[in-house]
């Protein structure tokens, strides 16, 4: 009994330590954002010695933060919607429809899942350049629409739906689109929500590709826009951190509201990756 209590104590202590390590950068960013730039440099310290929102006001009124916000929202919503719809349709076809080359196609999806995104950046950039999509919505969005893990997760869930369900719908006169959207999608709302949230967060946080494909400030998403704040103010830690805090806000809210679904999706996609 006593040994068990000690074990629990050690585990709890380690968990708290790990949590502190995770939280500290956020805490540090928040504390920095509510101080003035001068104060941050003059009096470095862990504890907040003032509550000053001037850097937030600067970020909102003296940068293109609102435009970047809108760009991020637009990009994330469009990419999420398109990724979910095309991945669902692709997964349904791979799972339920018998056609020549089905297995080969699935192997291609699996193979594309195994290629790191960074390995494709150069070719994607050349392609986007060739079609004149640099500094455009198409340039930001198109390469982000291919998310093999969403197809693989959907396929697993569709495979688990009893085949009689589809056959009953076929006999009822349902075509493939009807069956997908009126039977398979409602049966898999849970995983659809989870995948949508994870995709949204991923696109919202995406930095590397939008950073490469966009040079115009008016086309930037928030993560890319933060780099412009740095350029505009020099080393203005408080203002950079305030933009970072504002950028993270929607993701934090989304996570807090849909915590269970996000955890579910992360665990499922980790399972696929494992």
């Amino acid at each position, binding site marked *: 009994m006593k040994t068990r209590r000690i074990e629990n104590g050690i585990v709890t202590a380690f968990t708290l330590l790990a949590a502190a390590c995770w939280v500290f950068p956020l805490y540090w960013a928040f504390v920095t954002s509510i101080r003035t730039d001068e104060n941050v440099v003059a009096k470095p310290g862990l504890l907040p010695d003032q509550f000053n929102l001037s850097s937030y006001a600067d970020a909102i009124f003296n940068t293109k933060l609102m435009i970047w916000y809108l760009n991020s929202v637009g990009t994330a919503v469009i990419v999420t919607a398109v990724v979910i719809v095309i991945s669902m349709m692709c997964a349904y076809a791979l799972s339920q429809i018998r056609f020549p080359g089905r297995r080969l196609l699935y192997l291609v999806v699996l193979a594309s899942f195994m290629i790191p995104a960074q390995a494709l950046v150069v070719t994607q950039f050349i392609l986007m350049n060739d079609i004149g999509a640099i500094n455009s919505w198409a340039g930001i969005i198109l390469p982000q629409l291919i998310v093999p893990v969403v197809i693989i997760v959907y396929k697993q869930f569709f495979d688990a739906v009893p085949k009689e369900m589809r*056959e009953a719908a076929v006999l009822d006169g349902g075509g493939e689109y009807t069956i997908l959207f009126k039977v398979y999608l*409602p*049966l898999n709302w849970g995983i659809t929500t989870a995948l949508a949230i994870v995709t949204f967060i991923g696109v919202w946080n995406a930095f590397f590709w939008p950073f490469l494909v966009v040079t115009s400030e008016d086309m930037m998403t928030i993560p890319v826009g933060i780099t412009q704040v740095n350029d505009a103010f020099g080393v203005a830690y408080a203002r950079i951190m305030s933009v970072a805090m504002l950028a993270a806000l929607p993701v934090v809210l989304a996570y807090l509201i849909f915590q269970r679904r996000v955890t579910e999706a992360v665990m499922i996609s980790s399972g696929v990756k494992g």
Partner: protein
Amino acid sequence: MGVSLRNVSKEFGAARVIEDVSMDIPTGGFAVFVGPSGCGKSTLLRMIAGLEETSGGTIAIEDTDVTHVEPAERGVAMVFQSYALYPHLSVFDNMAFSLRLAKTPRAKMREMVREAARILKLDDHLDKKPSQLSGGQRQRVAIGRAIVRQPKVFLFDEPLSNLDAELRVQMRLELTRLHRQIGATMIYVTHDQVEAMTLADKIFVLKGGIVQQAGAPLDLYDDPDNRFVAGFIGSPAMNFIAADVIGRDAGDVVLRTRGAEAHEFRAAVADPGLATGAEVEIGIRPEHLRLDAAGMPVRVEVAEELGDVSYLYTRMADGTEIIVERHGSRDRLDGETVSIATDPRHVLVFDRQGQRLR
């Protein structure tokens, strides 16, 4: 004709699971496909539904060739073993699903669903989700979903297998009533010969993708074409005893069982090909055996007393199990040796290939 199959076959790769099946099911008839697991009965049903393509032959429904017609356009409705109800939809919406797809006017759809619900006593459950219903109610919803489509042919794929014994008996009666009420052609697949006997106008016994025999339930019971049908139809199953033909006497064939304690049986078989010395198997139903001091001695291993009837599970000297059905006697016979006999007209004879000799 409700459903006609001509030389229908089905292959999965190299495996031939349905072999050259032909059958006719009259309009309004209740046909049952019965057979052991893997005999092809469900595949045959799915081929009629259009869920499996045929490898050869033709399928006609109401005299129209539907071999290559889409499932939804064949005029069939199917009830699945797993019910296949859409869990996210209410009972009403489950039953109305096909009507909505067919763009049936709302008022007409409501009327059709309510009528089906009335027939199936589901009026009070239309707003519930399938998960809120019992197994029997779910099965009724599945049947209701079929009824609203007003199909030419109802197809049932082992629909009662997931129900407990009591509910199964109840649903069996309800299906019979339903068939009489709506008068549609019905085809029912089961591995349970009791269901087949109680429901069918006509039974098709399948084995290895081949129809072994088709006919009215009692015709199959009384007059099986082969050893498989004789053994499959009837519960408890028919007794089979290896025997040799030793001659003829007064029109009957005289047969002698093999082994140390050989015993003679007579069978009313006219087949002239049944020569002396032929190796055969004789089949006798448990209810046709009686205790008779002049009969064949067997040892009673277990006696099952069911009240009105009792079953003696006995063994011959060579180890062959023989089941004897008795009525009106409650003597405790466990462990005793008794003698059994039967009338020649109740002894069926099968050749070495299992074909009946008449």
